[in-house]
């Protein structure tokens, strides 16, 4: 849980109307959005296609201008360069310069942050190691697979060691291992005090890493809150017992039904497909997570608990 609760992102009555060439309104993408994201939070912005997620993010980054409403990012207007110096952004499509190599790409973005050459070289080396692209550091990005390009995109988003990281569909195009690594990275960054705003179509990804979520639909904020609060089923209780054989399980079930007078459902929880996949193609997934630690700072350490919670483990009440 974050120690401080000061808002990093704050929008009030945010509206965005797109217009055609003749300035006639074509679509209202965001309708009066009030959103507050606090320091150190991992916040998920969810919604179907065309719900206004990317438009909201682009307004937060100053790439689009709001039709109405106010935006404060890190206490400043979105186009303030001081605020921009503390933001990392990974767009839905990486939009990299295809003629550059990953090393040149990272050096370029480091220069935009005003880093000295020595700093830029050092940071580039660390980031290339972090995203496991040292072997392809001097090949043109144009020849990369989508997943590799995504890794370069992710590295550029971290080139300034940001206070606020905005990730638009961060796991899009990544294989399950890459996807897991990104989620681990987000968790590690959040532990280091970085505020993360992410959007994703993959709800499981959001559920894995986010503290709070907001659901947008047709530009309207439909729900917002902690995942635990939103997903809680107050009238149900679930127990998980390891190593219970069939007769004992039947006895426990009969006892519970007798005591409560309600029907008790018995399940054998399965691991998630993602976890199963990671076990099958284990390789060095964990090692890579640890490799991120030096870059993220000395305060970071390896996750204490299993970072792959199963999707059927609901909180007990």
């Amino acid at each position, binding site marked *: 849980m974050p120690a401080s609760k000061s808002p990093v992102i704050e929008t009030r009555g945010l509206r965005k109307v797109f217009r055609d060439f003749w300035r006639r309104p074509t*679509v209202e993408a965001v309708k009066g959005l009030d959103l507050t994201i606090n320091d150190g939070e991992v916040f998920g912005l969810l919604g179907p296609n065309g719900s206004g997620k990317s*438009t909201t993010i682009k307004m937060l980054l100053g*790439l689009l201008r709001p039709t109405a409403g106010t935006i404060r990012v890190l206490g400043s207007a979105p186009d303030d*360069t001081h605020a921009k110096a503390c933001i990392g952004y990974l767009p839905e*499509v990486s939009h990299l310069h295809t*003629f550059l190599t990953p090393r040149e790409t990272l050096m370029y973005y480091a*220069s935009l942050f*005003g880093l*000295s050459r020595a700093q830029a070289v050092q940071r580039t080396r660390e980031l290339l190691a972090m995203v496991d692209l040292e072997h392809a550091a001097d090949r043109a990005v144009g020849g990369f697979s989508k997943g590799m390009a995504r890794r370069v995109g992710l590295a550029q988003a971290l080139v300034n060691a940001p206070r606020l990281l905005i990730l638009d569909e961060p796991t899009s195009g990544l294989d399950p291992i890459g996807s897991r690594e990104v989620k681990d990275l987000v968790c590690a960054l959040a532990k280091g005090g970085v505020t993360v705003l992410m959007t994703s179509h993959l709800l499981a990804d959001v559920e894995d890493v986010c503290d709070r979520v907001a659901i947008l639909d047709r530009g309207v904020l439909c729900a917002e809150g902690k995942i635990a609060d939103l997903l809680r089923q107050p009238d149900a209780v679930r127990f998980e017992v390891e190593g219970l054989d069939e007769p004992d399980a039947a006895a426990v079930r009969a006892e519970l039904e007798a005591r409560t007078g309600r029907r008790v459902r018995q399940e054998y929880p399965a691991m998630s497909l993602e976890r199963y996949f990671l076990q099958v193609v284990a390789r060095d997934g964990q090692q890579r997570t640890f490799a991120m630690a030096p870059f993220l700072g000395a305060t970071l350490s390896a996750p204490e608990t299993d970072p792959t919670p199963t999707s059927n483990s609901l909180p007990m009440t």
Partner: protein
Amino acid sequence: MPSKLLHRFFAASARRIGGVTVLAVRAALRTRTVAALLVLLAACVLVLPGVVKGDGTPEGELHILLTYTLSFAFGILCLATLWAACALFAAEIDSARIQLSAVKPVRAVEFWVGKWLALLVMNAVALLVVYAGVYAQVHWRMCRDGWEVIERPVSRHVARPLLPTPREEAREIFADLQARDQLPSGYSERTILRVLEQKAHEKYSEIPPGGRQAWRFQLRRPLHIGEVIAARMRFETEYNTRTQVSGICRLSCVETGRAVEVPLDDFTLKEIEFVVDARAFGQIPTEGVRAFELSFMHTSDPKRAAGLLLRFRKDVALLTPGGSFWMNMLRAAAVHWSVLALLAAFGLALSVCFSLPVAAFVATMLLVLTMVGNSVVQVVSEEDAQKWRNRAGVLVSRVVHSATRRALQAKPLAALTNGERIDTDMLRTSLGWNALLFPLLLAAASCAVLRRRELADTE
């Protein structure tokens, strides 16, 4: 402390600008367009002088090398610069690649300057290569054909006769016409003065057979002992009268009182030039001499010969040593570079406002309009300008002319071909307006647009 902060601010800003510049240069070097451009320039420098037939004289060869080759290469670079500049922002915005850069702490002006500098660097390299290629060709031909000293390319200071400026002359004529109540009706004072000034600038004066004309000169740089001075006159004569012309040129040094007379009998060329050693003017002081008088007496037979026509302001000149030819070529390259800097700034300004096809189209149209407009202003008469069907065209041409007059007033190739030193004033004016003031204005306008423009779309 504040100076330390300021230093850190500028260092960071310089790194951002440098980053944008390096990216743009890399983008250029890693595309086939630049390779194609280099092939075109190489063909221009190496092939064109061999294809275009000269008159066989060293002067003719020099003319082809300096005028055709350099103009062609400069034309290619102009178009390439303009279109490349149009693409720099527009293509990045269209492909959404600018989004990743725009969310970084880069100011609009840093973006703009970075891209502009990239074009300047590329143009500087291209111009140096082209000029070096042409210089090498000149040198090679000079050695191969054994050009005489007088035929070799030179760089000389030019002194024009001391005459009232065209504006002063126009005012004088205007006052005279006004006093005699002979001002043309239906035209404003401004229009009349403009026409009179244009006419004064291009005015031909006649030296009839038996007539004499003298001009005073004040050299900017004094003539020293051991140096030579050349007098040059260009006549506008009918072809069939040239063979019957004869005259006497007299060049005298006002400070020493000594003169040199050169008889010119049956000269057949439009242009005459003769060189006089400074020692011919007697004892020249160590600080040199500056004041000269040149006179021409037309001694042809009045019954057979026609009068000689000269534009005093343009056709009569004294020429003194003005550095080496290759330094003059460098100055010409600098003037061309300044024009390319302006085109780059102009293209970038359009690139910020429009998509690539629109920006390229508008840029090309405005380029054509500038060329046409400047020609129209030179040839259109005031009577034609008054006709209703010409009014809009003439107005546009005049606006274009006045907007581009300063940018295009330097004529480096004409100076190079004529062996005239591109003086510091011309260089300063060209660099000041084309590579500094105009780009500054365009940068301010571009940055204002860039700050207001949305760099993402609905996607």
